[in-house]
């Protein structure tokens, strides 16, 4: 690959140079960062957020976003912990995932079919899930009783990668396949890029949007179940108040556009990892949490600004070349 090609690639996919710069800076400047245990640690820490970001990527490429995620996870975490003692582990997980599918389907129906604004719909579902979660759990933490469940959540492969990280990578590959090589994936890009044009081209935009919200509901529910498995318990405020924002931030930071039509699953992976590395570095440097939250915000603005500048320059270049 020639230097020019590398440059073109970098300016096309801005998340790559940004991730590389942050990674190299952290490795050089922060003691204890470039350590195999710590690198696996970062992957393990962000695997669940990454799984939820996968579903969010579908919705965002479709031109919408889903805020109900933030309380859906505490609901499914509570259900998966609370039901496993009465109906067994597998049914409990299936019920939790089904709840995610239902919430996703309601979101999808109201947004795609009824045409209500996604902000309002998903906000309403977010509030609904919060009260359901509190009602179900009676504001109490619920301990997971099944050892298999927590063993999976806390389990590590011999070289330090958690089972959840393996699941994350498998899901990334599946999502990549769906987005790139299936009809639904192509329809998603088309619907997000220009819904009218997609409709006129004969694409069932309503169905596409509906399916994407269901996918997002599913990954959200799965995220909740995995958080419960990882911490061996559910707690009512899990995910509250900003989990959906962090997930959306991960997706957008990677370079997917909130306006829809642009993005892919590796952008999301990169975006989530950038947030993860920043959080890890802040902890290693012993920075106060509120300061590190601010730094994260500043990095997001910086990255998105850089992305804007690079995209604009690329546009100009392509105009002058033509």
């Amino acid at each position, binding site marked *: 690959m020639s230097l020019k090609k590398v440059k073109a690639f970098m300016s096309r996919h801005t998340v790559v140079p940004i991730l590389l710069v942050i990674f190299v800076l952290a490795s050089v400047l922060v003691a204890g960062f*470039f350590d195999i245990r710590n690198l696996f640690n970062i992957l393990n820490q962000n695997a669940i957020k990454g799984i939820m970001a996968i579903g969010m990527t579908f919705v965002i490429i479709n031109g919408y976003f889903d805020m109900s995620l933030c309380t859906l996870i505490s609901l499914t975490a509570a259900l998966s912990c609370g039901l496993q003692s009465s109906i067994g582990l597998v049914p409990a997980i299936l019920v939790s995932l089904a709840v995610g599918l239902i919430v996703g389907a309601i979101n999808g129906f109201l947004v795609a079919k009824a045409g209500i604004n996604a902000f309002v719909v998903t906000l309403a579902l977010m509030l609904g899930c919060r009260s359901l979660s509190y009602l179900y759990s009676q504001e109490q933490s619920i*301990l997971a009783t099944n050892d298999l469940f927590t063993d999976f959540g806390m389990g590590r492969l011999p070289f330090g990668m958690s089972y959840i990280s393996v699941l994350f990578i498998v899901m990334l590959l599946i999502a990549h396949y769906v987005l790139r090589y299936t009809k639904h994936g192509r329809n998603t890009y088309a619907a997000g890029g220009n819904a009218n044009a997609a409709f006129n081209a004969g694409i069932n935009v309503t169905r596409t949007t509906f399916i994407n919200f269901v996918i997002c509901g599913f990954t959200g529910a799965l995220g909740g179940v995995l958080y419960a498995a990882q911490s061996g318990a559910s707690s009512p405020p899990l995910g509250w108040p900003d989990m959906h924002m962090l997930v959306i931030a991960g997706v957008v930071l990677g370079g997917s556009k909130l306006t829809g039509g642009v993005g892919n699953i590796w952008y999301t*992976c990169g975006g989530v990892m950038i947030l993860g590395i920043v959080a890890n570095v802040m*902890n290693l440097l012993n920075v106060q949490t509120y300061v590190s939250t601010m730094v994260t915000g500043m990095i997001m603005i910086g990255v998105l600004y850089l992305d804007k500048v690079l995209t604009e320059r690329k546009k100009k270049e392509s105009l002058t070349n033509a």
Partner: protein
Amino acid sequence: MTKKRLFALLCAATMTLTMTGCFGGGNASSGAASGAASGGASSAAASGDSIVIGMTVNNAGADPYQTAYYSAAEAHAKELGVELKLLDPVGDVTKQQNQIQDLISMNCDVIVLWPCNAEAGVALAKQVQAAGIPLMTANNDVAEEGRQYVTCYVGPSNILEGQQSAEQMVADIGTDAKVLYIEGQAGYTASEERHEGFEKGIEGTNIEVLDYQISDGNREKAQQVMENYLVKYAKGTVDAVFCMDDNLAIGAINAMKAAGRDDIKVYAAACGDYNTLTYIREGSLGGTAMQSPIIDAETAIDYAVRIAKGETISDYNNYMETPVATPANVDSLNITEW
């Protein structure tokens, strides 16, 4: 087309590089990296002569008690010459999980955990133990199931505080009274345990609790809750309101002042803010168990250092003293300012 494929490849490559690449070439490269870095930053863990304490303290900065705890712990660690890594999960169990993993990878000699949630703390305790690092819980203990992984607990007894304050309330308003309750954050252990203590304190009396409401642990929300209570319960129908802590009690006092009501006595299960003493002195707060964050933090650091040095701690529970302050005895208690 090719570019996209290339990109996917490169992504896969970077991922494998971050995972396996440095795994294979591991020792040499990471050794060089940490060697270069230790020039700038002090890496005491590597040198081995200084004690490193890793600590995750819930909500420092959001709550006056935790803020005082935070600075007292830092000051005391400096005094003793130990290195302290102090992190704050701001009430988020997932964040605390990440911080525990970060502390494990920082090679601390001892980890001090102030869990956001006692049940979720069990898994954290298990992880720390699996990493071979001794764990101590501070201020708030993990749930029963997790205590087998914990060396000891240092801090106040929330149940005892709730009970002491409730008994003080019973002594003031009699055994046939009607009271209201303002809870802290849902699922937060201190809130649940003080509630338990409160129930113990009013056990055997005819006291009727008319209402329980949660406040998310902040003063503004507690004030709103109290405003609603005041609308719902007219003058003379309620004798006292019992709050999870002094912060919420002040919210309740503010609501009463704004509504011009003084018929309800206010009690707090425990108090972690020195300024609250002025409310006790002026009589608007009827009583609360005093819990000094300075004593709490210093005791915790002392115990952590002892554990790091390899000493065995004989008792599991090491409670600090929390005397009940009332308008009558507040000046004779001799509480150090923080």
